[in-house]
């Protein structure tokens, strides 16, 4: 298969940031294609700068390239300037590793982390020369597959995808590869596409949308049912039981041009059981699986040496909860002491003095600002969302930050939460003002930035039944905050324009009927919608009107207990009645402790799959209440690393 480099090369001098199309990263593999190897094009439906650091794709890239039956390359969305030139000259989407045309691959796999990238997915499939609707594809076309957090409700894009993967990809990717390899070796004969898809639907974690019929009664969705008896009624997610078996990425890609998260990233655990009710990631990635500290140390040490980075991030949904985090951070700092300066970053900081203590330990240089996420402005509201941070916790954290030399504090908040009143919204301003007051004892002009985002409810969370705030209502609340802080010296309110929340809401919780809207917006040129300057709400509302899609019904309506949700035939392990009870608890302002350190309340994520939390220590980290409701009075099964499950706290 010839590559497109000769046609591409003269175009690259004409486009912005051409280094994003040349590959050559340290860590990139030299692809060796062969008739008995399945060729994967791992793709991210956004620019290279956003897509390259994606850890999920990098992990799969390595696992596939280690497999003698597979070869993997990568592709990212070409920016509009290059897309124009490609379309003018009939040059297809290409891999950046060897610049092969996308249609020469057996599968094109997408990571979907944000709903607003859906139109880019269609655009890339089209640029690949593949029909955007799966029903129109023939045996010669690659299979279009998607994974990532958005695929827990893939229904809006179900008509465009051949295969959807739920959960951790490390193991299932190999199973898919084997089935596709048989198909490839058999010559992909006429009519074989349907057979391979049906075969793939037998793999746990694989959802094949075309194998299901959707039934509506009037406006209501009433059922999504398999068309064949051998296709599962409910597709379960995949969960890697032990992260230690997958020390990936082993050779993280080091890009030549600047990207987001441009540093060494080492995942220290997966899953989170804090139970924040707005957080889809925390719900769908359970249980908690820690990487052994020794492995983390090795990955950091070898990674820094190999990449030459001077920064390492310990990633997870809540890194300060890692067992023995203080020792781990201390060890890393010590091991890099005699070399050039290395900074360690924790992308998520706990809101208490303990968290600041760790930050002080690691940010010896570049001490500029610290970020905390109380998420809501009043204790009442934080009980609703189960982010059980006491005001004292926040103040002790802020006090510690200022007294340790930080000058700027940034606070993250959501607005548009269930039961939110204006008093709750204005509580954000009050918290920020109080933090400025605390800072005055330590610095002349303390600065507190309150960053406010509009809340969009997500599937498989207790808030999946909640009718979200309208764009107008979110704007009103943000204006309320701005007015209230206008004269508050030292307080800045930053906000994301909530204009996209309606579209995000419809894509998050929509059914297959909204697919036409995505297609229409794409056909009208609506790509890169996650880029603020390119998002066009009119394009979406016009498309919805043209196709009879009612935004109120999809986004603003509260769902009822027994309503069939578009993702009910998929499973993240969580029992629906657990989520419903948690939703009722939220409305009753009742918090729920972290089950890592307290008794199990059978959400389903462990018990349903016979897996358990893997934590090195069953003792909650010291310091601060963290609102974890730490009550070890009852027994809870915990797997200690490398040992059989033990019962603690009894």
């Amino acid at each position, binding site marked *: 298969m010839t590559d497109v480099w000769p046609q591409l090369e003269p175009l690259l001098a004409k486009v912005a940031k051409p280094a994003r199309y040349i590959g050559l990263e340290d860590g990139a593999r030299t692809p060796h294609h062969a008739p008995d190897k399945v060729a994967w094009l791992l793709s991210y439906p956004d620019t290279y700068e956003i897509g390259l650091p994606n850890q999920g794709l990098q992990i799969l890239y390595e696992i596939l390239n280690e497999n003698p039956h597979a070869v993997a390359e990568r592709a990212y969305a070409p920016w509009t300037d290059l897309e124009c030139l490609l379309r003018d000259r009939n040059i297809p989407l290409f891999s950046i590793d060897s610049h092969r045309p996308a249609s020469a691959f057996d599968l094109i796999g997408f990571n979907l982390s944000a709903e607003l990238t859906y139109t880019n997915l269609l655009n890339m499939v089209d640029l690949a020369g593949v029909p955007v609707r799966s029903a129109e594809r023939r045996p010669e076309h690659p299979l279009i597959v998607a994974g990532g957090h958005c695929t827990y409700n893939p229904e809006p894009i179900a008509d465009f995808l051949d295969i959807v993967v739920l959960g951790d990809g490390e193991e299932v990717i190999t199973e898919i590869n084997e089935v596709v390899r048989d198909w490839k070796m058999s010559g992909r004969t006429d009519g074989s596409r349907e057979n391979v898809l049906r075969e793939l639907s037998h793999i746990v974690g694989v959802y094949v949308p075309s194998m299901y019929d959707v039934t509506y009664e009037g406006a209501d969705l009433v059922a999504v049912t398999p068309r064949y008896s051998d296709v599962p009624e409910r597709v379960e997610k995949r969960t890697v039981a032990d992260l230690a078996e997958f020390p990936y990425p082993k050779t993280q890609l080091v890009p030549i041009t*600047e990207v987001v998260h441009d540093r060494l990233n080492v995942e220290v655990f997966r899953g989170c059981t804090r139970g924040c009710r707005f957080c889809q990631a925390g719900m769908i990635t359970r249980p908690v699986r820690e990487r052994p500290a020794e492995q983390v140390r090795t990955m950091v040490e070898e990674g820094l040496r190999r990449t030459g980075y001077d920064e390492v991030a310990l990633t997870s949904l809540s890194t300060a909860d890692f067992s023995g985090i203080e020792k781990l951070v201390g060890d890393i700092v010590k091991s890099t002491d005699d*070399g*050039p*300066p290395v900074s360690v970053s924790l992308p998520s900081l706990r809101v208490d003095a303990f968290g600041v203590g760790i930050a002080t330990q690691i940010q010896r240089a570049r001490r500029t600002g610290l970020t905390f996420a109380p998420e809501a402005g009043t204790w009442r509201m934080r009980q609703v969302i189960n982010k059980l941070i006491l005001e004292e916790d926040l103040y002790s954290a802020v006090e510690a930050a200022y007294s340790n030399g930080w000058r700027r504090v940034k606070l993250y908040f959501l607005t548009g939460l269930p039961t939110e009143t204006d008093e709750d919204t204005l509580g954000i301003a009050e918290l920020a003002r109080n933090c400025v007051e605390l800072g005055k004892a330590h610095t002349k002009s303390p600065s507190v930035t309150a960053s406010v985002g509009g809340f969009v409810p997500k599937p498989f969370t207790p808030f999946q039944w909640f009718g979200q705030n309208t764009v107008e209502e979110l704007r009103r609340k943000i204006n309320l905050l701005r007015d209230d802080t206008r004269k508050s010296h030292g307080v800045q309110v930053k906000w994301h324009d909530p204009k996209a929340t309606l579209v995000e809401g419809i894509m998050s919780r929509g059914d297959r009927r909204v697919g036409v809207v995505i297609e229409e917006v794409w056909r009208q040129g609506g790509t890169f919608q996650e880029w603020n300057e390119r998002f066009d709400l009119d394009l979406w509302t016009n498309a919805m009107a043209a196709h009879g899609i009612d935004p109120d019904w999809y986004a603003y309506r509260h769902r009822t207990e027994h309503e069939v949700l578009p993702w009910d035939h998929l499973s993240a392990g969580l029992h629906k009645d657990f989520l419903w009870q948690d939703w009722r608890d939220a409305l009753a302002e009742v918090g729920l402790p972290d089950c890592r350190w307290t008794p199990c309340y059978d959400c389903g994520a462990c018990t349903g799959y016979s897996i358990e939390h893997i934590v090195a220590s069953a003792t909650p980290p010291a310091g601060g209440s963290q609102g974890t409701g730490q009550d070890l009075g009852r027994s809870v099964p915990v797997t200690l690393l490398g040992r059989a499950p033990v019962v603690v706290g009894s």
Partner: protein
Amino acid sequence: MRIRVRYSKLGKIRFSSHRDMARCWERALRRAELPVSITEGFSPRPKVHFGLALSTSHESLGEYLDIDLQEPEGSSVDLGTLPERLTPFLPQGVVVEAVSVIERSELSLQEAVTVCTWLIEVPGVSPEQLEIDVRTMLDATTLPVIRERKGKKVADDIRSGIIDLRVIGATPSDAPEQGAVFEAELATQPRSVRPAELLAAFDPPRNEGRVRRTHQWIITDGARREPIPAHATARAPAQAGAR
């Protein structure tokens, strides 16, 4: 101790920017565990001084940077093998050609280099036509261009910055677009003339194909020399990772 490094940049990597290369170098120096001096203060950085920026998409046979090494560790670094030691840590297409020790009193690369030699491919033009273009340009006494400076359009004359132009012939067979190729000697001081400005000053303006910087010159008392002597680049550099 300050060392000067000469390297080439050829092939796909030409599409990386000057800033990209700076970051690649910082990572490479850390990977090679070279005892580079670090700036004091809030945000410590390695003491590395880059030469004239090379435009994104241009190749080069002669790029330079100066590196300050810590004392006394720096003096034990084997400079003879340093090129081979550094190249594997740099992106494919970047090859370290030579290293030499320089005095700290020496002018910085950006001040010292006053002239660059360029090899410029012009797509869609015959060598004969290009010969006429070049003659006309060299015969002109002024070449007015409009430049943008601080957001304002300013009239400028680039003729004095054009030292010499020579047509070489037809483009080589591996050129992405066929045409003719010429060599240009362009001043970098007092105001630099960029290859793109040169092509735009032809009548009619010519398109830019591949552009390769072949030399950077320091002129002392009328004699020209390269920041690191040319013999170090005697091996065939064009092959290194060109594709």
